[in-house]
């Protein structure tokens, strides 16, 4: 089993990093929403799916290709997120986070059922943009250009979001509003609007991941369901609500999963949960979470 050549290992590490970038993008959105809103956004996977489908719609119905979709899909899905927040989540403020979980779980069932009914389960084809087709022949593997693009985009977006929240005025207001909403409100800051913006931002990140995923995975109603459980594990391991934690853990677990696929592929969809169990036993607040 240890006879895996070093070259192959490099390839697998790289692939792990690529998959990790999807985990990072999705768990980042989840972490922001939980950290700042205290909502366990279970419909994150469904919104990721929605992002991919909006991209498909734009191409199929409006003739708009990948590049406009990259911008438009997060905006459209983000607007849908505003709707969810204003119409539903807002009513649950102050209640146990479990109510939010149930509500968003209901939204998942609704969205998934609707799309399965319309499109079936095998999904829709989505062509890769011409500019990103092909790839580089590295000494140890063939690296598709598109995957490089995905890692690049998600790294930039993750860093950007982290910087906005930790380093800007908007970010500091957001963080303050999480700590003590009435006090921040007393300073004349519109807290409910902050909350809406935050939710829309988290949701837009999910949609962006969906558009990025559309050309490589199938655009199918179940694409979110396949991923969301893993992403939740990532957030739990990283520490619920920790932004840096979710980014680092996302990439890290992607690599770990990649390595498992080489050494013991049968366990590749279990390994993350084994890690989660161990982390919860040793550090219940997660690797980067604040100990209560």
């Amino acid at each position, binding site marked *: 089993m240890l006879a895996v*050549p070093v*070259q*192959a290992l490099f*390839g*697998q590490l790289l*692939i*792990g990093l*690529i*998959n990790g970038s999807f985990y990072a993008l999705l768990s980042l959105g989840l972490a922001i929403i939980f950290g700042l809103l205290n909502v366990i956004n279970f419909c994150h996977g469904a919104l990721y799916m929605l992002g991919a489908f909006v991209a498909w719609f734009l191409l199929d119905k409006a003739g708009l290709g990948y590049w406009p979709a990259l911008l438009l899909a997060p905006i459209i899905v983000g607007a849908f997120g505003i709707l969810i927040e204003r119409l539903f989540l807002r009513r649950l403020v102050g209640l146990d986070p479990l109510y939010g979980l149930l509500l968003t779980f209901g939204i998942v069932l609704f969205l*998934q*059922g609707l799309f*399965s009914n319309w499109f*079936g*389960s*095998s*999904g*829709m*084809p989505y*062509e*890769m943009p011409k500019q990103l087709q092909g*790839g580089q022949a590295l000494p140890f*593997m*063939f690296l*598709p250009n*598109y*995957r490089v693009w995905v890692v690049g985009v998600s790294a930039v977006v993750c860093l950007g979001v982290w910087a906005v929240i930790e380093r800007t005025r908007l970010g500091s207001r957001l963080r303050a509003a999480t700590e003590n909403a009435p006090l921040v409100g007393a300073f004349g800051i519109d807290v409910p609007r902050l909350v809406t913006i935050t939710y829309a931002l988290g949701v837009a990140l999910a949609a962006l991941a969906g558009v990025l995923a559309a050309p*490589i*995975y*199938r655009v*199918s109603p*179940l*694409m979110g369901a*396949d*991923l969301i459980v893993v992403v939740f594990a990532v957030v739990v391991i990283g520490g619920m609500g920790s932004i840096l934690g979710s980014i680092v853990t996302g990439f890290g677990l992607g690599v770990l999963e*990649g390595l498992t*696929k*080489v050494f013991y*592929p*049968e366990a*590749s*969809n*279990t390994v993350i949960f084994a890690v989660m169990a161990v982390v919860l036993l040793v550090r219940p607040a997660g690797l980067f979470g604040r100990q209560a």
Partner: protein
Amino acid sequence: MKKLAAATFVFATIALTATARADFSDGVIKIGVLNDASGLYADLAGKGSLAAAQMAVDEVGGKIGKTPIELVYADHQNKPDIGSGIARQWFDSDHVDAIVDVPTSSVALAVSQVVKEKNKVFLANGPGTSDLTGKACSPNTVHWAYDTFALGNVTGKAEVEAGGKTWFFLTADYAFGQALERDTTKVVVAAGGKILGGVKHPLNTSDFSSFLLQAQASGAQVVGLANAGGDTINSIKAAHEFGLTKSGQKLAGLLVFLTDIHSLGLETAQGLLLSESFYWDRDAKTRAWSKKFAEKNGGKMPTMVQAGVYASVVHYLKALKELKSDADGKAVVDEMKKLPTDDVLFGKGSIRADGRKIHSFYLYEVKKPAESKGEWDLYKLVKEVPGDQAFRPLSEGGCSMVSAAK
């Protein structure tokens, strides 16, 4: 005298109704369509299978004699415990006489056990594992549309004959994938090929790039995809992306359905060799039936599983008509084996002692985008393989019913 005549008449009527009742248990012929309604196999079976079964029922006017035929439907979520639970409930309290479809081999093997225990009828179309007519064969099961042996046999042999001597497998890690890999390996080795290695991946994997990298590193000429549904779609997409085919390796889709190719698009899937027992555009009869089916199924053309559901229900009802009873499942299956099969989709055929339905298999190649004239115009025929050459010989399956008959 008049009184006597009246009494005789009344008595005769009672006796007649009594026999009519006794013919078909509970006064109704009830067929349960059990499959994956919302998961990765929902398109290749799903509600489409229900529509196909309904077409078979409608064809006989919805009843046999005076006994109405009813269909019920349930989702087994690809979980053996849920599938066998539904089967038990259907038999014990809902008066179901036969279960049809059941994709996902692990679920089908569990359901087959329950059907045998309750002495009902199982018309298997969705599942692939050839064990259903091999070491797990049952006097209550008919395996209709396809099986892993025929797939491996037809596609595998064709690939080896085309020069693909060395193989690497991507195998879905459950009963079906393992059976498909095993059956294909036998064929490849017998034809002079060699297996260089393989990977077993979990069911429902979204990213196959790691596995494809391993396949690439193996240097095998052919990468055999021993998986199905969404897993196959994702493997083919990733293989396309990682330049597997450009570097001279070939993909062998061991179980690829029409709906998978539709989802992949011809640009990605073109040139892929695959085998099926049914394709809607084969002849005038299949075209006519499929058009009718598509109207009931949201415009989607039937897969071989859905076609098999229709044909097997047609034949089941034919056997009931002859037998005039559905009480003894084994007797019904025996009758189905005795009667020659003949339907618009699979033509003339027969059912073997081990429960295997024998019909032709077809090797297809996926069309290039330029060759396709419509949304569902996806395959071109490479060759037809007669049933007796496509399926596993009766003596090699290890079915206990066959050895007992000797």
